[in-house]
């Protein structure tokens, strides 16, 4: 909550500065930790997340995300291994140094749940379809760096458990420092 208020205050203070950071050809990269909350399981997980994003216009970008499961905050974890790869499009509302965005990302996950307590049976790692809905905010505070926060809802199922599938949907929060460069020269305004 404090972070949201702080970012809103910063947004208000910089919104009037119309220097355009989001331009066609902008290339962004980000590496951060993602805190996840499993929707159908009692588990809060931590992921290492990275993404690479390219802007084809001021309002549209394509972004690839990779998420690598690190650990859980619970004593009995649901997952043993999990890696997710997503690729999709994001729509942006840039305004000076600020940029709100939202989008969808189809993808795949490589998941391995922990052995079940009932059957004491280890599961193989399986490739499963995944789907992500993401939204967030970026603040471009310098020529090469930005702050960002984001939320993500990830849909995923592990098929083939003893009693059917295991729902692995996760709600994620992330934020941190990102880097960007402009790969295309802007045409001078006429």
């Amino acid at each position, binding site marked *: 909550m404090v972070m949201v208020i702080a970012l809103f205050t910063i947004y208000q203070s910089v919104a009037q500065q119309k220097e355009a950071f989001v331009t066609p050809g902008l*290339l962004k990269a980000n590496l951060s930790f993602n805190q996840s909350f499993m929707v159908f399981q009692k588990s809060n997980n931590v992921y290492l997340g990275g993404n690479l994003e390219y802007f*084809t216009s001021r309002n*549209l970008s394509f972004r690839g995300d990779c998420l690598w499961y690190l650990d859980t905050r619970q004593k009995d974890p649901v997952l043993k291994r999990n890696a997710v790869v997503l690729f999709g499009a994001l729509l942006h509302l840039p305004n000076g140094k600020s940029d709100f965005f939202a989008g969808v990302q*189809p993808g795949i996950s490589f998941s391995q749940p922990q052995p079940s307590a009932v059957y004491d049976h280890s599961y193989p790692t399986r490739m499963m379809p995944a789907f992500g809905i993401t939204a967030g905010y970026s603040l471009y505070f310098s020529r090469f760096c930005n702050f960002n926060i984001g939320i993500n809802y990830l849909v995923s199922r592990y098929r083939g458990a003893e009693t059917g599938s295991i729902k692995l949907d996760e709600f994620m929060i992330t934020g941190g420092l990102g880097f960007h460069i402009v790969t295309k020269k802007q045409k001078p305004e006429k």
Partner: protein
Amino acid sequence: MRTILIILAAFIFLPSQAQELKLKKTQSGVLSLGARSSIGLVNDGQWQKPAFGTGGHFRLRFSDRVNSEWFADHLKADLSYYAWRADTHIGWSVMYYLTKNPEPLIQPYLLAGHCFEYLKFTDNKSPANHAERWSASIQAGIGTHFNITKRFDISIATQYMLHLGTKIKASNVEGVTSFTKTKGAGIHDHILLNLSINYKIADLW
């Protein structure tokens, strides 16, 4: 060295894609790439659990009102509580646009086409116990593009798919799962829903 060359090529290629797509004549020849998520709805005995999948496609447009979509999907679903199935689709559809305007904000279309499917059933408790088959299918349906920009659209589509192939029956008696294939060809059908994002990358002719 090879990696560096690929990265350099990407830097040269990507900025060119940020420009507006210049059409040579009409919309014919426009090539676009897309990623999609799919939901399969089956109403056939044991196969009634919905499938969820991911895939991709490219589109090649033949005229202002006719487009084609070449796709591959991979879906997975539960098969009752004792097994699961994986469907891989590869196929193509022709799309006919219902509006004369070649680039409206909302662009509904009819579609029909052909598809091949690889289907595999796997026992939950014993992955070595599985059955598989290939089938051919026809599909038809409706969809619409939401043209967000000149080059980017979000599309939704629903299609009815009719598969012709060996029928596989699954059963679980006293905890033992078995799969049996019937002789000859059988028919099964399902609905496939798609949500896709698409970007026009070139006008080929």
